[in-house]
C-alpha cells in the first residue's frame, strides 16, 4: 500500500474536526475513483480514500465554494493543482483564505506519466510524500526542435483527429468562463470537421492559456483521440517566463503579465522593433 | 596597470625621436605599458591614400591584422595606440572603411591573404596617445604626478587637423575647438593660451608639393602664436612639429619675418613637469631652440609665479560659460 495513503489519512483525520470538509479522492462503487468531500460526521469513509488516478479537484472546490462561500475547506492537492488554485485565486474564482492546502507530492512514476517539470507543492504547509526533481518533457522538446514544415505536418495530423468534443476545455480548471469564445461562430467555424490546420479552436485556446496553464495534463489525458494539445500551452508558458519572468502559480500576488504595463527590460525581450 | 598595443610609426624613430624619448620617460610614472606590434610597417602617412586606395589600405590593414593576431594570442587589450596623428588617422580610416564599404574590406583581405593575414573590421579600438592620457589615465592622475609645475610658461596648444576630423568614433570634445590638449597642459600647471587655430592645417606634405602654400599656413600659425605672447607651441603630431620647426626659418626668409617660435611635443612638457631633465626628453635637438623659452621655467631656477592679471570685478560684462561637450554643464544640450 502506498505509504502516502496512510500519512494522508492521518492528516485528514487530524484536520477533519477543524474544517467543514476535506476534498480528496474516494474509490466509489465498482472501484471507480472520484472526487469526494470527507466530513467529520462520516469518518469511516476515510478507509476508501484513494490518491490515483488524478482528478481536476480545483474545479470541484470552486463549485463547492460558489455554493457555500463561507465554508472552511481543505483540499488534497498535487503541485499542479496547487498552482491551478493560485491562478484561479488571481482571477477571483477561488478564495484561498477559506481553503487549507494539503500538499501531496508526486512519485517519479506519476511525474513521468504527466511529463511534469514541477511534481511538488510550494505553498502547502502540510506535505505528504517526498518532493522529487521534475522530469523532462521529451515530446515538447521534439516538437520545439522540428522545422516549420514538420511542425505544420505534425499538427495537421493531430488536429485532423479532433472531433471538437470540447472535452479538453471542460476538464480544464482554468476554463471557468460562463460562455466560451470557442463556441462562437465569429471565431471557430461551426459544422466543420476535421478542424483544418492551423485550427482556430486549438490556437485560440492556446492564447487563452497564456499565463494560466499549470501543466496538469488533464486536457491531454481526457482527449479521446490523444492530441498532445498541452505542448502548445507549455511552449508559450516557457516564452512568457523568458519574456516577462512570470511562472503560472508560482507567486500568489504576482498578476498575469499580459494585463500589466511593460516593466524594466520587458520590451527588449519581446523582440519587437524599436 | 594600463596595457595597450603600440603602433609607433616611422617618424617616432627618426624625425620625431624626441617624441619617443619623452614618451618613454613619462611611461613609468603613469604606469603605462605598451606592447609594440612586431614587424609593423609604414602607414603610408598622408601621401599613399591619395595615390591608390586598395594598396594603401592593404598596407595599413597589415598592421591591424598583425596587431589583432598578436593580442589574440596573449588575449590582451583590443586597444591599439598610435602617438602620431597621421598613423592614428590612417589606422582609424582603414578600420572604419573596411566596415563601411564591404567591397573594400574584401579586396584588402584578399591582399592580406597573400601574407597569410586576415583582419575583421571592428576587432581593434584605434586611439591616439592623448586620448588615452586624458580619458583613460585621467587628468587627476597626471596632475598628481607633477613635481615641477610649469607656471609662467605660456604654451599654445596645437592639436593639428588630422586628430579631430573625421571623428569616426565621436571621441573628441569638439571638431573645431577641442580642449583635450588645453586641459592636459593646464594640468601640468602651464599658462595655456586660448589658440583659435588649434586645428588649422600646418600644410602636411605641402612643404614638398607647394612650398609657398605651406609657408603661408605655417606663417599664420606662428604669427598668431607669437602675437598672443606664447613662449612655445605644444603639439601631438610629428608632422606638425617637423613642418613648424624645420620650415620656420624658410618661412621667415620667404616673408621677411623674424619669428622664433619653438615647437615641442606635449610629452616633452609632461616629462619636464614630472621632474625629468631636458636631455632625457630630447629637448635641445629641435631646430628652433627652446632654450630661452624654457628659461621662463629654467630647469635650475624655478621662476616665482607672478599672479596672472585676473579681470577686476564689476568691470565689463560676464563671460558666458564655455561649451563643454563631455561635462555639458547646467544648460541642457539639445
Amino acid at each position: 500500500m502506498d505509504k502516502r495513503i496512510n500519512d494522508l489519512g492521518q492528516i485528514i483525520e487530524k484536520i477533519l474536526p477543524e474544517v467543514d470538509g476535506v476534498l480528496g479522492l474516494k474509490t466509489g462503487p465498482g472501484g471507480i475513483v472520484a472526487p469526494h468531500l470527507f466530513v467529520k460526521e462520516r469518518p469511516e469513509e476515510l478507509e476508501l480514500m484513494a490518491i490515483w488516478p488524478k482528478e481536476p479537484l480545483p474545479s470541484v472546490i470552486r463549485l463547492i465554494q460558489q455554493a457555500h462561500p463561507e465554508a472552511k475547506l481543505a483540499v488534497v492537492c498535487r503541485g499542479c493543482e496547487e498552482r491551478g488554485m493560485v491562478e484561479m485565486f488571481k482571477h477571483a474564482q477561488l478564495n484561498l483564505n477559506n481553503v487549507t492546502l494539503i500538499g501531496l507530492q508526486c512519485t517519479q512514476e506519476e511525474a513521468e506519466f504527466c511529463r511534469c517539470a514541477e511534481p511538488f507543492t510550494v505553498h502547502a504547509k502540510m506535505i505528504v510524500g517526498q518532493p522529487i526533481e521534475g522530469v523532462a518533457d521529451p515530446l515538447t522538446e521534439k516538437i520545439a526542435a522540428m522545422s516549420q514544415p514538420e511542425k505544420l505536418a505534425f499538427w495537421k495530423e493531430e488536429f485532423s483527429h479532433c472531433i471538437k468534443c470540447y472535452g479538453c476545455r471542460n476538464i480544464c480548471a482554468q476554463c471557468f468562463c460562463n460562455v466560451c469564445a470557442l463556441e462562437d461562430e465569429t471565431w471557430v467555424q461551426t459544422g466543420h470537421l476535421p478542424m483544418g490546420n492551423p485550427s482556430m479552436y486549438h490556437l485560440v485556446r492556446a492564447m487563452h492559456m497564456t499565463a494560466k496553464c499549470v501543466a496538469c495534463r488533464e486536457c491531454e489525458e481526457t482527449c479521446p483521440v490523444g492530441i498532445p494539445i498541452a505542448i502548445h500551452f507549455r511552449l508559450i508558458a516557457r516564452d512568457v517566463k523568458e519574456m516577462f519572468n512570470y511562472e503560472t502559480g508560482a507567486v500568489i500576488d504576482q498578476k498575469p503579465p499580459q494585463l500589466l504595463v511593460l516593466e524594466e527590460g520587458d520590451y527588449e525581450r519581446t523582440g519587437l522593433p524599436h | 596597470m594600463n596595457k595597450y598595443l603600440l603602433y609607433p610609426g616611422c617618424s617616432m624613430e627618426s624625425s620625431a625621436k624626441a617624441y619617443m624619448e619623452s614618451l618613454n620617460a613619462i611611461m613609468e610614472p603613469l604606469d603605462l605599458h605598451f606592447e609594440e606590434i612586431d614587424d609593423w610597417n609604414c602607414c603610408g602617412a598622408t601621401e599613399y591614400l591619395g595615390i591608390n586606395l586598395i594598396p594603401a589600405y592593404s598596407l595599413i590593414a597589415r598592421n591591424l591584422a598583425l596587431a589583432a593576431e598578436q593580442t589574440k594570442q596573449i588575449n590582451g587589450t583590443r586597444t591599439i595606440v598610435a602617438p602620431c596623428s597621421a598613423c592614428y588617422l590612417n589606422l582609424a580610416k582603414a578600420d572604419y572603411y573596411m566596415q563601411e564599404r564591404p567591397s573594400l574590406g574584401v579586396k584588402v583581405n584578399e591582399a592580406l591573404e597573400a601574407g597569410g593575414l586576415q583582419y575583421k573590421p571592428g576587432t581593434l579600438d584605434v586611439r591616439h596617445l592623448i586620448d588615452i592620457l586624458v580619458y583613460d589615465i585621467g587628468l587627476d592622475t597626471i596632475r598628481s604626478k607633477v613635481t615641477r609645475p610649469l607656471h609662467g610658461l605660456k604654451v599654445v596648444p596645437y592639436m593639428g587637423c588630422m586628430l579631430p576630423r573625421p571623428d569616426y568614433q565621436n571621441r573628441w570634445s569638439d571638431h573645431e575647438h577641442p580642449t583635450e590638449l588645453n586641459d592636459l597642459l593646464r594640468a601640468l600647471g602651464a599658462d595655456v593660451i586660448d589658440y583659435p587655430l588649434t586645428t588649422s592645417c600646418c600644410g602636411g606634405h605641402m612643404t614638398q608639393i607647394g612650398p609657398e602654400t605651406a609657408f603661408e599656413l605655417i606663417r599664420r600659425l606662428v604669427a598668431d602664436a607669437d602675437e598672443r605672447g606664447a613662449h612655445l607651441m605644444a603639439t601631438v603630431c610629428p608632422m606638425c612639429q617637423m613642418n613648424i620647426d624645420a620650415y620656420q626659418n624658410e618661412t621667415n626668409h620667404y616673408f621677411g619675418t623674424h619669428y622664433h617660435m619653438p615647437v615641442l611635443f606635449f610629452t616633452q612638457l609632461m616629462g619636464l613637469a614630472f621632474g625629468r631633465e631636458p636631455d632625457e626628453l630630447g629637448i635641445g635637438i629641435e631646430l628652433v631652440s627652446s632654450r630661452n623659452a624654457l628659461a621662463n621655467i629654467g630647469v635650475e631656477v624655478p621662476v616665482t609665479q607672478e599672479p596672472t592679471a585676473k579681470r577686476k570685478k564689476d568691470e565689463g560684462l560676464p563671460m558666458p560659460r564655455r561649451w563643454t561637450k563631455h561635462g555639458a554643464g547646467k544648460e541642457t544640450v539639445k
Partner: protein
Amino acid sequence: MNEKKQARVGVYVCHCGSNIAGVVDVVDVAHWAANLPNVVVSREYKFMCSSLGQELIQKDIQEMGLNRIVVASCSPQLHEATFRNACDRAGLNPYLFEMANIREQDAWVTSDKTEATKKAKALTAAAVSRVIHQEPLEALLVPIESNVLVVGGGIAGIQAALEIADSGNHVYLVEREPSIGGHMAQFDKTFPTLDCSACILTPKMVNVGNHKNITLLTWSEVEAVDGYVGNFTVTIRKKARYVDESLCTGCGVCQEKCPKRVIDEVFEAGLGYRKAIYTPFPQAVPNYPVIDRENCTYFLKGTCKACEKFCEPGAIRFDQKDETLAVKVGNIILATGYDLFDARRVSNYGYGRLPNVFTSLEFERLTNAAGPTSGNVVLRDGKTTPKSVGIIHCVGSRDKNFNNYCSVICCMQGLKFAHLVHERTGATVYNFYIDMRTAYKAYDEFYQRVLEEGTLFVRGKVAEVTDAARYSNEKGKLIIQVEDTLAGKQRRIPVDMVILSSGLQARADSKEVAQKFGISCSADEWFIEKHPKLDPVATMTDGVFIAGACQGPKDIPSSVAQGAAAAARVMSIIGQKEIQIEAATAIVDEENCVGCQQCMAVCPYQAILYLADKGKAHVNEALCKGCGTCAGACLPKSISLKHFTDLQLVSEMVGAMQTMKDFETISAEVAA
C-alpha cells in the same frame, strides 16, 4: 441576426474632384457596390462633403428609408463628423454611418488605376458589411466645468487668459517664472513697428494682474492632470516664494538691501545681475519678489536675513513651504513657449569663447534701457562702442547638424538689430543671411528701410568667426569668414562685434509636459496640433489646446492670434454647457461575465469597477475613453467596445477579404 435583414444601406462614392476620380474609377465602384448585400442605393458624386452631397444623403434617407449609410471618400479624420451630422439632420442615428478611406489610403497612394479601383471596392465592401452590424448609440452628455487652465504666462498665454476672463469665465494662469511676460518681456523693440516691447506688453500684464476672473499662480508648475474634456482635475505645485504675498507691498527695499549679487541667467540672459531676493524686472506682475534658495546666504549658511530686517511690513517667511492645490477645470490651453537654440553648439561661431560674440537675447538686454548697460550697445568690456557689427542669421536653424526647420523670426530679428545698431552707434553693419524671409504685413517694407539705412547684406552661410588675424587690418577684430554667393568669392570681414540671430527650439522638457497633458510631440519635440492647416490650436486630446511658439516657431502677431483662437475654441465649448463625450464606450454583458477582473487590470483609466455582490464587472461610462483594451483582453468576450465590437471588426475584415478573394478567383478563371 434579424437586424442584418432589415439593414437598408446607401453607398455614396465621392469623386473628390479629381483627387479620387483621377485614379479610382468611381462610377465602376458605385455600380459594383450596388449589388452588395443589403445595399439599396449606390451613387457617386463630385463632392460628397459639399452641402449638395450631404443633401443627397438626407433625401435618400427620408425617401428610401435607408437605415445605414456608407460614404467612400476621404479619411474619417476629416469628414466623419460632417457626414454624421448629415445623417443626424435626416433623423438617422449618426453611429449607423461608416466611411471607406479611398483617398488618403487608396487613390493618393496607388499609381495603378485598376489596382486602386479594386482596393476601393474592397474597402467599400468592408465598410458595407461593417455598417450592417452597427447599432445606434446615444452620446453621453456631461456638464462642462467653466473654469479654464492656461499654462504659460507669455504673450500667447496672456492673450488667451484675458479673452476668456473678459467673457466672464474664470481662468487659472500658471507660470513657472516669478513673473508673467515670457520672452517678450526681455525684448527692447519689436519688429516691424519698433514699438517698445514693454510698452505694449505691460498694460496686458497689468490687466492680468488685477483681473477679477484670473487667479494668477506664478512660480508654480502643473504636477498632474486627470479626467477628460469638461472635467479635468489639475494638481498645481506653488513653489515657496519665502515672501507672504498678502503682506508684501512690492516696495523693493529687500532687493536693494540684499548683499548677495548673482548673475541672472534667465531674464538678463547671463549679461546682468540680480540679488538673491529678486523680481525679474521692475514691471513684474505680480510684483512679489522670490528668494533664490541656491544663492541666498540664509539658506546656505543660516546667517544674513538682511531682507527680513528691512522689510517694513514683515512679509519675509523663511519657513514657507511649497503648496499643492487641486483645481477643477473644463479646458486647458498650453502656451509654454520656446527655448532659444544654444549658440555654443556652433563652436565655429565662437560664442562662449570669443568675448564679443553675443546671442540675440543678450543683444536684446544690451539695447534695453532697463538692461545691464541701460541701453548702450557696448562690447563685452562694458565700455567700447563697436564701430562695425556683423549679424549672422539662421544660427542653428535650416542646418542638418542642428535644426532642419526655419525658425521664422531670426531674419526680422536680424534686421531689427541692424537698425538698432545704426540708430545707437552709427557703426557699419553687415547682415549675413541665406534667404531673407520677411513674409508678413509690413515686414518687407522694414527690410527696404534697413537696406536704405546702408546695412551691408552678404548672402552666404558664415563658415567661421575667428580672432586669428592674418592681415594687419584684422588685428584685434573678429574676422567673419564667409562665401559671398552673390559676389562669387570667399570674403574675410573684420568686425568689432558679432550678434548671432539664434533660432527657436522646443522647450527642453516638452516631451514630459506633453506626456502629462496626454498630447504628443513631433520629431523636433514641438507639440502636435490636431491638423496643421484646419485645426492648428486644437490637439488630438479633446479639451487640451495649444497656442504660441510651443506649437512651432512663430512671431508675436501669430502667437497672439493663436492665443485668442484657443480662447475662442474654449469659450465655444463652455458655451455648450454640456458636452457629448465619446459614445463608443465599453459595456459588460453581465450575463456572460464571470468576474475574472482581467478587464479591470488592463483599463488605463480605472473606469471598470467590480460589483462584489453580483461578482461581475461594470463600466463607469463617464470615465471610459473607449480605447477597447479591455475588449482585447476579455477571453469570453463579455466586455465589448460599442461601435468597435468583435462582430463589426470581423465583418469589416471579412468584407475586404471576400472581395479580394473573389477578384482572385475571377482573374484565375480569366487566366485559365
